């Protein structure tokens, strides 16, 4: 069985979920039932296992259902279920890195990206200033880099289009000759 990846739009919707009851739910929290509790516990086990295995799709699909119920924070009876939701959100954040790592990115320059973290996660404070930063770094907005790269491609597209037009024109001129 192949578990499909959760689209980013779905994850964004999940991140925008309100934790307070809305008018759509009649202003009420999710009612506790033993079956729902069992469902949540199983999903939590699946999510933690998915995180342990580095399986992004497994965790994200489990989290999608795990975060849907709206538990009442003032009810001590559902505290474990709330804990699960809190923890799974941290796992989701931690797990997204695997997804970012899998994305194609701009080739590293000759001297390499600035060495922000060593192979064992050790920080390297002596990393050279002014060197290019890996665009995959969390929290780093590489908008300028991608914008510049895109501009270069636009210029290339424009240039090749002009060459193409000249070629067409020359072909018609050669026919006429």
């Amino acid at each position, binding site marked *: 069985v192949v578990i499909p990846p959760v689209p*980013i739009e779905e*994850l*964004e919707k999940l*991140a925008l*979920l309100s*934790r307070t009851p809305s008018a759509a739910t009649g202003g009420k929290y999710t009612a506790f039932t033993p079956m729902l509790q069992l469902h949540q516990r199983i999903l939590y086990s699946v999510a933690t296992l998915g995180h342990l295995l580095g399986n992004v799709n497994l965790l994200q699909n489990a989290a999608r259902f795990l975060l849907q119920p709206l538990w009442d*924070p*003032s009810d*001590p009876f559902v*505290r474990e279920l*709330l*804990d699960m*939701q*809190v*923890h799974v*959100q*941290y796992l*989701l*954040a*931690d797990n*997204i*890195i695997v*997804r*970012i790592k899998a*994305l*194609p*990115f701009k080739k590293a320059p000759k001297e390499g990206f600035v060495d*922000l*973290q060593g192979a064992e996660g050790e*920080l390297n*404070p002596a*990393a050279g200033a002014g060197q290019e*930063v890996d*665009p*995959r*770094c*969390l*929290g*780093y*907005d*590489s*908008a*300028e880099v*991608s914008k510049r*790269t*895109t501009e270069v*491609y636009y210029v*290339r*597209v424009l240039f*090749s*289009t002009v*060459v*193409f037009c000249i*070629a*067409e024109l*020359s*072909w018609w001129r*050669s*026919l006429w*000759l």
Partner: protein
Amino acid sequence: VEVVVAVKASIFWSVAARFFWILHAYVDRTFTVLTCAYAVVLLQVSEETRSLKRLVVQFLQLGVAQAVSVKDAYAVQNGVIYFWNLHVHIFRHSLYTQMLPEIVGFLTSAIAAVDSFTVSAAAAAPTAGYESAPVDHRLRLSLLETLSSYYEAKGMLAEAIDAANKGTGAGSAPAGGKPAKGAPPQDTPPEVPEYLRKKICEQSSRLVLLQGAAAAAGGKGGAKPSEPPTFGNAFLNVFSVIIQAEQPAPLMAKETAVALVNKAVDILEKDVEADLSVLDFNTLSQV
């Protein structure tokens, strides 16, 4: 003969040119299509990366908010530690100007979340079933220091000083002893050891100097050099003075630096010695 050769050559070149242009157009058209496709893919990839990076912060923020709603101090600090470990390269390498705006939002809300457990004991009373947990002040001070550094990088010195002062344990006050006008309230509980507050106090002092220099550069007729702020502790006051004296020449004149060093020696000889004389070294600990 020459005319025939010329005609043949012209026909040959005409046909050759035609083939060449057809070939060129074909290759170029393919190249154009490929380039367009690649540019589109590149745009999508960079946007996807950015969205995923944003999601990392958003999920952490949601988790922290939910942990605050049940007053679970452990879960809140757990989320903040996740955030810190995942983004530590940004703070260590001062990449504040290229930081995602979501990070600033997280920092502000995380400080408020941690403060909800430190400032008011009643508010921090845990929900039934939860244990009350001690708050790690190092975590809070690191967040404040980062927020202050971000504002400094953006040139918002007033906000930077305000953020730093929330961690110093005392509102910025001139050497006279009274808190400065508009100084923030004492947000940091007094139990935070001086050892932990040293760095943020130094940052606050340095920012005050920077603000004074900026005011002198922009103001009419220049501004008076600002006094190093005091923090209600002799050790911290010494560090506050020394950090200003250590600033490079355009910011700190040599004569002023010498005067500041003498002032630091004065505080060491009087206040620090007095503090040391009452300390019980048998009960001292690092924290």
